[in-house]
């Protein structure tokens, strides 16, 4: 048995044996060491692909040699109106070490605009209904020189509630409306600078979603689309992607978009923290010392200090590809590189899936991972990171490790609080919530102004977070929150709770049987499980 267990089907997959080391798991802002049952399959992230040695040169090459499009310099003419749109702070995760890749792309593109006599240039963050970025975050993203030259008149966040700043492009043949940022729609050229961290990002989603309004978004950010997406992290099988694709066609009919996409490797942590993605069986003495130092430091710190510490650690992502030109063709090329980095072949589904929930999500940069975001990370992101078929069998058990604290950020997530405490106790039915309450939240004047003038997520955003977990919710038989520090948060989410992972596994086995196949996603991981029988 033991020898058989030691077999390696892929370099990122490890089976737990009698003498295997315990595994490090994230639990919110903390990390815990857990012994797993013998036979448990542990999936690690693939080793990072080596980054391109000169990313500025690669970007310059891409814009000068685009796919199915004239080179950027050939499209620029003096006196024309150009808008450069870019992804917001939700990408990449955690925020990358400076200079941010967007800064490098901007330096190349702005140089080219200037050299070709284009002065009317605006920089817009395509935040859609996400929170607007703060000035400090905006400065960090583009560097102080660009910030000084453009902020605030020509460098700003998209406002999905500014009626005068939006213009309707029409409807798709399926009746999906699209209203988009007026400055972009009326520009002679829109240059979109994208960072593709997961396969769901990029492509037509950049403009058609990042720069639209609530009415446009609700046509595809809805429960049935999510249920029909198998999964939304794999575009060919994603109903969400198909809808966005149709909207993208509408964009192409009305606007001239030059797309610059980049793919990153998965080098999330600097050397000091690389143990978090490493196979524990291969830890050196130095690695064990690093872990001990980290564990002891974290154990001495209160939660908020741990959170701050984690948010201060910039990611070490490197660019592995850059393509520019026509949106779809560019996106295809980038997806190929994404899959190369992320796809992990996995043989067989599991009955019990264990996944730690780290304090990393697109929606809690510099704030707390509230219960709704814990839900979206578990049943949304972690569940959907597959290609072909889910890693977890239908009606399987998902075990998540997180304290499930009842904490919300009042500035960033005000509408989440009402959604969680007022609506979820009434119903967890996504269709019911959409019908009865989504518009009420979306039109709440206070939430609208908090989104527009402050840094709050749009009033409708918590609904999208709930829908985001809908295909996971429909598929999973039971979710157990291991180490939840209270009973009411798991209860409101419709989950069971356990004091620790051992108890959670025992509960899951009582549900799925003693021979249940267990798999653990070694978080934090950006990986796409390609599951075969």
């Amino acid at each position, binding site marked *: 048995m033991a020898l058989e267990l030691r077999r390696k089907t892929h370099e990122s997959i490890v089976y737990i044996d009698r003498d295997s080391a315990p595994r490090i798991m994230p639990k919110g802002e903390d990390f815990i060491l857990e012994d797993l049952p013998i036979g448990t399959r542990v999936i690690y992230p693939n080793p990072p692909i080596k980054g391109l040695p000169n990313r500025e040169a690669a970007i310059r090459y891409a814009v000068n040699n685009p796919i199915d499009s004239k080179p950027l310099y050939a499209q620029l003419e003096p006196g024309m109106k150009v808008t450069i749109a870019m992804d917001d702070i939700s990408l990449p995760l955690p925020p990358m070490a400076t200079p941010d890749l967007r800064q490098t792309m901007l330096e190349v593109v702005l140089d080219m605009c200037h050299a070709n006599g284009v002065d009317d240039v605006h920089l817009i963050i395509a935040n859609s209904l996400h929170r607007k970025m703060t000035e400090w975050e905006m400065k960090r993203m583009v560097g102080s020189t660009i910030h000084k030259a453009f902020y605030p008149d020509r460098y700003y966040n998209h406002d999905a509630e500014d009626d005068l700043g939006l213009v309707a492009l029409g409807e798709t043949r399926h009746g999906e409306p699209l209203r988009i940022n007026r400055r972009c729609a009326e520009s002679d050229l829109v240059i979109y600078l994208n960072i593709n961290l997961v396969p769901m990002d990029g492509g037509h989603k950049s403009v058609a979603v990042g720069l639209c309004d609530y009415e446009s978004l609700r046509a595809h950010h809805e429960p049935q689309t999510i249920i029909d997406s198998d999964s939304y992290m794999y575009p060919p099988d994603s109903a969400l992607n198909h809808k966005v694709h149709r909207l993208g066609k509408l964009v192409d009919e009305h606007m001239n978009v030059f797309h610059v996409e980049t793919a990153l490797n998965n080098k999330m942590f600097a050397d000091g923290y690389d143990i978090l993605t490493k196979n524990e069986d291969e830890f050196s003495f130095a690695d064990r010392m690093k872990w001990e130092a980290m564990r002891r430091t974290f154990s001495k710190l209160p939660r908020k200090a741990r959170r701050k510490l984690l948010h201060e650690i910039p990611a070490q992502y490197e660019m592995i590809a850059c393509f520019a030109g026509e949106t779809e063709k560019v996106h295809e090329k980038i997806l190929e590189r994404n899959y190369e980095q992320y796809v992990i072949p996995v043989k067989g589904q599991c009955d019990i899936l264990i996944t730690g929930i780290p304090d990393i999500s697109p929606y809690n940069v510099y704030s707390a991972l509230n219960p709704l975001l814990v839900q979206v990370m578990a049943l949304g992101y972690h569940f959907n990171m597959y290609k072909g078929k889910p890693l977890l069998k239908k009606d399987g058990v998902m075990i998540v490790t997180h304290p499930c604290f009842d904490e919300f950020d*009042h500035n960033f997530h005000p509408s989440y609080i009402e959604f969680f405490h007022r609506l979820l106790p009434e119903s967890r039915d996504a269709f019911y919530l959409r019908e009865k309450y989504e518009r009420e939240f979306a*039109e709440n*004047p206070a939430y609208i102004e908090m989104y527009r003038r402050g840094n709050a997520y749009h009033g409708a955003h918590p609904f999208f977070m709930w829908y985001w977990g809908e295909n996971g919710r429909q598929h999973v038989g039971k979710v157990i929150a291991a180490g939840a520090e209270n009973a009411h948060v798991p209860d409101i989410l419709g989950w069971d709770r356990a004091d620790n992972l051992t108890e959670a596994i025992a509960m899951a086995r009582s549900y799925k049987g003693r021979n249940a196949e267990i798999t653990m996603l070694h978080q934090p991981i950006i990986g796409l499980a390609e599951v075969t029988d």
Partner: protein
Amino acid sequence: MGWSYQNTRMFGIFLFFNQYPFRSAILVIMTVKSQAASFYDLEGTLVSTNLVHTLGFYAKRQQGLLGTLKKSVGTLAKLPMFGITDLYSRNVFNEYFFQSYKGESLDRLRYFSDELFEEVLKPAIFEGTPDLIAKSKKLGHIQVVVTGALDFSVKPLCDYLGIDVYAANRLEFVNGYATGRLLPPVMASATKAKWIREYAEREDINLSNSYSYSDSISDLAMLSIVGHPVAVNPDFRLKQTAMQHDWAILDLK
């Protein structure tokens, strides 16, 4: 406003009686209040000025240089006392504060009210105020200002902002001159909430669907009686309270 068909959602329920000789159906019409309103405090919430700015404006417009000087210096000297009484109780503050208007003529107060609006109140409207009111109107909410400010100063501002109804404090006048007292009901603290409750009852307004906006902890009662309380540019105590109760906190500045 009274009862109106548009304001009220009607539910028809058929009750069936199947036992002979009572086999019949009765349609029972039930009405549920569905009209909502947005109740705003004014000063500090929609505009940056407070009662003292208005008093200061009138102090500067007394008859004769000596009168202006005397009133202006008197107002300045009272500032610390205004602060102390306001900290202690809004009702005590009102009693003390409005004494400063004693002797002012009704004609004069009304005559300068447009100037007060143009010079003091209009520039003090917060940047986000028109947008907030526009979004609220889009929902069909009745716009109501409930303020401790004086009625003659509030009217032009409400007209300008498109506010439908306002409830403000009124000075008592005898022979055309202010006595320094307020006519009841004095709009402050719990009285605002009482006025809102009575207004809602009278106009068939559903308070659970309504919004209240204020910047001050003294309006806690007014915020607490609606389904959607919002702390706007809140003072420290209100901000703490809003966070404890998970109320929305909005900055209109």
